[in-house]
């Protein structure tokens, strides 16, 4: 095993020396002026919602007091779209968890991880918080952790993500340049759209292996107007 390691590393060392050090490309800085995409004119929440909608996520902006009703409505729709009784998987440290749980319709059965594979593959929706959101690309960011289930935003057909307004970053560079190298989660996933494919004749189909419906609920401070697109 170590012989193979040495063989590959030595081969690469010799190969890299094909160019003398003076002829090699220096490491350029990641210049923010080039990498960052300017976002003028609109606020972060509005830009995030526009971009998220453009990639097929379903964004909505609600105040804290309107949050339970909004999620209750989403779950009711999810339940009525399903033949089997609907279960919802709720992340243990979901923001506003108690408020949200109180609004779950009676027709929906609440499950908290850990659950069996049987249950995981049968539930109709998963509700989670996010680690961040990115306005430029319209993405939400989920990470693994002790109470963060990777499967929750992946296996059920519907994913509902709760985003606090201040979690929205302007640019992808903000997420990656500030990620602490020593403290990275085992998995960080940037979600930019529902599961989709265009493999068959280029026709767009959603909900291939992951959720076909991803609702992103941005929670703003009280008193701000509802800015969800399409309302």
């Amino acid at each position: 095993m170590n012989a193979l390691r040495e063989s590959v590393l030595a081969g690469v060392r010799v190969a890299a020396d094909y160019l003398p050090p003076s002829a090699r490309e220096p490491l350029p800085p990641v210049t923010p002026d080039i990498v960052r995409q300017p976002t003028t004119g609109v606020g972060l929440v509005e830009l995030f919602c526009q971009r998220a909608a453009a990639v097929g996520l379903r964004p909505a902006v609600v105040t804290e007091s309107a949050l339970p009703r909004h999620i209750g409505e989403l779950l009711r729709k999810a339940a009525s779209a399903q033949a089997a009784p609907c279960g919802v998987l709720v992340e243990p440290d979901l923001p506003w968890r108690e408020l949200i749980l109180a609004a779950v319709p009676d027709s929906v059965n609440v499950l908290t991880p850990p659950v069996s594979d049987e249950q995981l593959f049968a539930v109709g929706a998963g509700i989670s918080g996010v680690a961040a959101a990115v306005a430029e690309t319209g993405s939400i960011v989920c990470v693994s952790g002790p109470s963060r289930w990777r499967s929750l935003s992946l296996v059920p057909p519907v994913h509902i993500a709760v985003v606090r307004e201040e979690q929205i970053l302007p640019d992808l560079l903000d997420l990656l340049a500030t990620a602490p190298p020593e403290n990275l989660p085992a998995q960080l996933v940037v979600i930019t759209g529902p599961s989709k494919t265009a493999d068959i004749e280029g026709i767009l189909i959603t909900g291939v292996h992951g959720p076909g419906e991803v609702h992103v609920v941005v929670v703003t401070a009280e008193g701000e107007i509802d800015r969800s697109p399409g309302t």
Partner: protein
Amino acid sequence: MNDALSPFRTAVAAALADAGLRAALYSATSNKQAVHKTGIDQLHDADALRELAGSIKQHTLDHLDTYLSQFVARVEDRGGHVHFAPTAGEACVALTRIARQHGLRLCVKAKSMTTEEIGLTAALEADGVQVVETDLGEFIVQIDHDRPSHIVTPIIHKNRRVIARAFERELGVAYTEDPQELTQHARRHLRDIFRRCDLGITGVNFAVAETGTICLCTNEGNGRLTLTRPRVHVAVMGIEKLVPRMQDLAVFLKLLARSGTGQPLTCYTSLITGPRRADDADGPAELHVVIVDNGRSDILAGPYRQILRCIRCGACLNACPVYSKIGGHAYDSVYPGPVGKVLSPLLATLARYPDLPQASSLCGLCREVCPVRIDIPGLLVRLRRDQVRQRVVGRTHRRLFQWAGLLLRYPALYRLGQGLARAVLRRRSEEGWVRQAPALMRRITDLHDLRAPAPQSFRTLWTRSRKDERPA
């Protein structure tokens, strides 16, 4: 004249005669050219970003030994296992050993060009492991016993009727041509596999040296399931996948999906740093990274180094006037299209792919769309030169170029040759067109009529007009 066609030319002739294939290719590639443009136009300074991406990749390659060692150390710090494979065969051995040691029997695979290149599926199956491709396109390729023909959209050559017949035959479902229903059949079939699988194999889009992170860009969710559900996750990567810093990912991610499919990012961009932590809720308990050389360090040690910058976005395939007519299978390689014309002969031998460097008009569209600024036409010209040196090109071909060289070296000879050709072609022309030219030029008129040459050459007219302008 030698009329026996090479395998490549035979495949090209077959592809050109297949109207269905040409229609599928035309619609797919022209659509992808349009979305590529939209995607890239969204960037405020796309050229500067591509320049930056190219130089970061080139820097990484020029110091690859440093970054590779750093990456390996970080992966191991995090509790990942690293395996090295000088050749495809040794990569397969590493994989089968992992499967055997852990008693893994059911493998789910996300789409990966490197695993195609090393022939991994056959090796695992020979060892008794069931391997299931989970990307929709690759799944269809697998059940229909076909080969992928594009590095991003593998079944660009297949229409829904062919797919419908394969599903009916192999999955036992009712015949349907509806893409939505076909997709749901695949989902149901694969869900059961995802519940039971114990080994997940993926490729790697980028590997970050400073953190030991691997980055995977996927759209369907099968990639995420593959690196979430099984007990053991094995990522297979070529040595060239590295980038130095986490922030470099921002540069490449902004270009990769835009160049390939026009999306700002693929639906799922997964960053994996080590296996599941002790207190993590779920995820694979073990992470293995298999680092494959398989000819890459030989490319690194020479003038073709920059082809290793390639991030496999597929933009050059979609832009190429040759690929969009003949499709991927004609190239007879895992890597088709412009990048494949360079990579395939270099990873194998020049003699294995004698036609590929020639199968280009050097129009330069591939260089224009490349997000990491690879000079593909320049590399093709260099390959042609090497072909001549290694005597890969045929005698007729070499002799023709020797003659052309003579003509170009001696102006008098050039004028004489041109005058002769003009006389012969004009004598053969009818109503301004030559339908059948003599000797080697017949190869041209076999394809299309030639316009008859003008009575006088441009050079003659030019000289005369200069004389007329001159004050008497």
